[in-house]
């Protein structure tokens, strides 16, 4: 009986722990500062709100358009180069947004790479503004929509398609009236992910000169040393996040009908011919050029410029990145599994609340989480009287857990939802013990989802910068940190080599993830 009771607490404990850095931050500020209601009317708030809204809604829209076009093409048509483009569309996920920012600045700037290609120093494009930022975020994030919507478009049941062709509905009308609405949930889910990631970004927006809430937090904190101000902005950011999540769950409820129109029987892809074939190719090529070929080309160009002075310490950073990343991902996915398992079998109201708390970190800037952890560990170490946590790997891994729990939870929840509750009953009746059930039934059934969750975590963690920067132990640099330092030194061309190495690892993870989605192993 007592062990049973403990099980009810396990999920809440995990959820609460993961949210702890954010909570300790709030508590710290509540003690040190106070909410300044005048701030709500201030110009600064209007600026931040305006900029943040513009940025995330702009990104949302562009991501939606890019993601929908590319996923529709890949899911429903066979055309020239389709298989190749199915990979190029998903690869931008391997690129950190800030690297995309650097490469495009290098490409479009005065006497940049584009002007070299064209041979005219007058050819340049100023992208360090809102439009440039939206463009960069859209490139970095549209693969989220691509992956989800592609599955959705691809599994629209053949009966729907036959109905469309029987009624001789013109293909464009069919797209807007039938196929697109059926995939709203997937498209929307991907776009929301993109929005959350954009909200939490700090490095890219700072570089592009966009004053968002994240920037506001840092300006107040480090610029003015004004903690009260920083909390004001941070609180409003959280309100923003809640608003988005709430809207998302409302809309998700509305679109529950999809299950009947999606079946295992897929309809065959339509083979495009003639001008449509060419059109599909051209559209795909243009999109891929901007989202993949240009950034990669710039990185390779920089790598070649650097080729005689390659810093082979890069491989040390690679080793650090890989070990830290893999260990963290394993720990986080285990915690996710435990939490969702416990919530399924030992549900509780507080469990649900802490579950929602635990995924907040996804839209909070990494540096905010970093400082929250600093405060937390410092408090613990002071109370204990000796250093237990500060400056250890534990801190960095904890930060990753808080920041990226949402990523792995998504996969795990998806997997558990595919296991019918009658299996739960059967294992309760027939199984030897709960532990035996977990190892013999749930883990094997969840394996594909655990692997996918692991890959998603790996990709996210590899790109992380700010929390790692603040929390890592001495003498430990990752590739992301190295890239940041080089860019800060404004030695952009030296960024090429470590970026390519980093992206190679994340690209492998992306490709693995992609093939799992394509083969429906999800």
């Amino acid at each position: 009986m007592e062990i049973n009771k403990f099980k009810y607490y396990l999920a809440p404990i995990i959820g609460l722990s993961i949210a702890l850095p954010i909570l300790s931050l709030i508590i710290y500020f509540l003690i040190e500062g106070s909410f300044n209601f005048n701030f709500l009317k201030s110009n600064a708030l209007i600026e931040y709100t305006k900029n943040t809204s513009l940025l995330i809604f702009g990104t949302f829209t562009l991501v939606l358009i890019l993601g929908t076009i590319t996923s529709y093409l890949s899911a429903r048509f066979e055309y020239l180069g389709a298989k190749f483009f199915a990979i190029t569309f998903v690869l931008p996920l391997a690129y950190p947004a800030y690297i995309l920012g650097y490469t495009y600045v290098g490409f479009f700037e005065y006497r940049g790479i584009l002007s070299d290609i064209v041979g005219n120093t007058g050819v340049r494009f100023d992208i360090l503004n809102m439009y440039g930022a939206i463009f960069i975020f859209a490139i970095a994030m549209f693969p989220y929509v691509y992956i989800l919507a592609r599955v959705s478009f691809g599994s629209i049941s053949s009966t729907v398609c036959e109905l469309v062709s029987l009624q001789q509905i013109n293909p464009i009308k069919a797209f807007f009236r039938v196929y697109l609405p059926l995939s709203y949930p997937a498209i929307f889910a991907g776009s929301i992910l993109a929005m959350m990631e954009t909200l939490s970004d700090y490095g890219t927006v700072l570089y592009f000169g966009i004053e968002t809430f994240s920037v506001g937090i840092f300006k107040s904190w480090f610029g003015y040393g004004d903690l009260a101000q920083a909390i004001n902005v941070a609180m409003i950011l959280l309100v923003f996040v809640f608003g988005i999540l709430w809207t998302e769950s409302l809309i998700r409820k509305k679109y529950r009908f999809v299950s009947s129109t999606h079946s295992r029987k897929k309809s065959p892809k339509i083979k495009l011919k003639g001008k449509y074939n060419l059109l599909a190719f051209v559209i795909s090529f243009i999109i891929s050029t901007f989202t993949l070929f240009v950034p990669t080309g710039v990185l390779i160009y920089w790598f070649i410029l650097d080729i005689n002075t390659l810093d082979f310490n890069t491989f040390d950073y690679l080793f650090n990145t890989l070990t830290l990343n893999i260990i963290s991902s394993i720990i986080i996915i285990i915690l996710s599994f435990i939490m969702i398992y416990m919530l399924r079998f030992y549900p509780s109201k507080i469990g649900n609340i802490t579950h929602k708390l635990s995924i907040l970190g996804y839209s909070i800037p990494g540096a905010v989480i970093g400082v929250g952890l600093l405060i937390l560990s410092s408090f613990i170490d002071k109370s204990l009287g000796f250093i237990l946590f500060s400056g250890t790997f534990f801190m960095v891994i904890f930060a990753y857990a808080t920041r990226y729990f949402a990523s792995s939870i998504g996969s795990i929840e998806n997997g558990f939802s595919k296991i019918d509750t009658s299996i739960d009953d059967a294992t309760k009746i027939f199984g030897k013990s709960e532990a035996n059930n977990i190892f013999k039934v749930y883990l094997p059934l969840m394996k594909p989802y655990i692997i996918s969750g692991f890959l998603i975590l790996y990709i996210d963690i590899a790109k992380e910068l700010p929390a790692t920067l603040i929390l890592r132990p001495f003498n430990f640099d990752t590739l992301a940190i190295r890239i940041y330092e080089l860019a800060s030194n404004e030695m952009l061309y030296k960024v090429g080599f470590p970026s390519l190495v980093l992206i190679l690892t994340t690209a492998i993870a992306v490709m693995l993830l992609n093939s799992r989605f394509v083969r429906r192993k999800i």
Partner: protein
Amino acid sequence: MIKKLALGAIVLASSLFASGEVNVYSHRHYDSDKLLFKTFEEKTGIKVNVVTAKAEELVSKLAIEGANTPADILITADIGNLYEAKDRKLLQTVESKTLEENIPSHLRDDKKEWFGLTKRARVFVYNPAKVNPADLSDYLSLTDAKFKGKVITRSSTNAYNKSLLASIIANHGETKALEFTKGLVANFSYDPKGSDRDQIRAVAAGDADIAIVNTYYLGVMLNGKDQKDIDIANSVKIFFPAQKTTGTHINISGAGVTLHAKNKENAVKLIEFLSSSEAQAIFAEGNHEYPVNPKVKASGTVVAWGTFKEDNIALNEIGKNTKKAVEIATEGNWK
């Protein structure tokens, strides 16, 4: 858990093999610094452990860690950051004849808590085809109507500009400083964005005529591998402002020993090393910063720019006014 311990053990073990160690929190992330730490290790057998991060984050980290901080030294750029660390009681006094010999008194704290290691000047970089250097004088003159739409610099949130504005407050008072800010902003070609290097490029591209930047960026561009950068750097000229009045604003990057340092002796040794001729020469050549040690010459490129009158106001005065500078920048709408 086991792997975590293993990783931690490796880190710990490697430091145990040296004869002591020193733990550094540094904002600087130049390769030349890495070289210097290695040299120090070889010379003294003391292991140098480094964590780099943004300056404000390091100060925050130190403040939060309090007595439990593992850091022995804080190395950071910008007097504002050093002053903040001192103000928040994060540093301790250091008695060192060597440091007093190697570093001129105006480049170190009178209370012996921080020590300058490199010097940089904040100058004008201008397009010689469009601007007659005879028209340029001091920082305040940039507000002149004839420069409307021709001036750029990076964000006011950047430490270098904060300190520049703080120096103007210290030299001319708050009212004049606010006037200056408003006038400067009125003359911007566009809202501040990008880095110092982007400002230099913008002048070369014709987007603006005058930019306010730090000297060493120009030096780095002139000596880099990218021919384009070299061409760009060659197409602009440098001007040392305020020669007839207060002198060109200078800033430092420097170091201090943390209040709760566990390896104070080693820390002092490291700072002394960084102030030595050997180290100073590497700072000078590697980054084209001005060395603080008067016995060491600047790099060839830098020397070619000529000597100039420095603003010799006490750096602590500048640091004191940093917070005010932020207020004034906000009021004057310098983004």
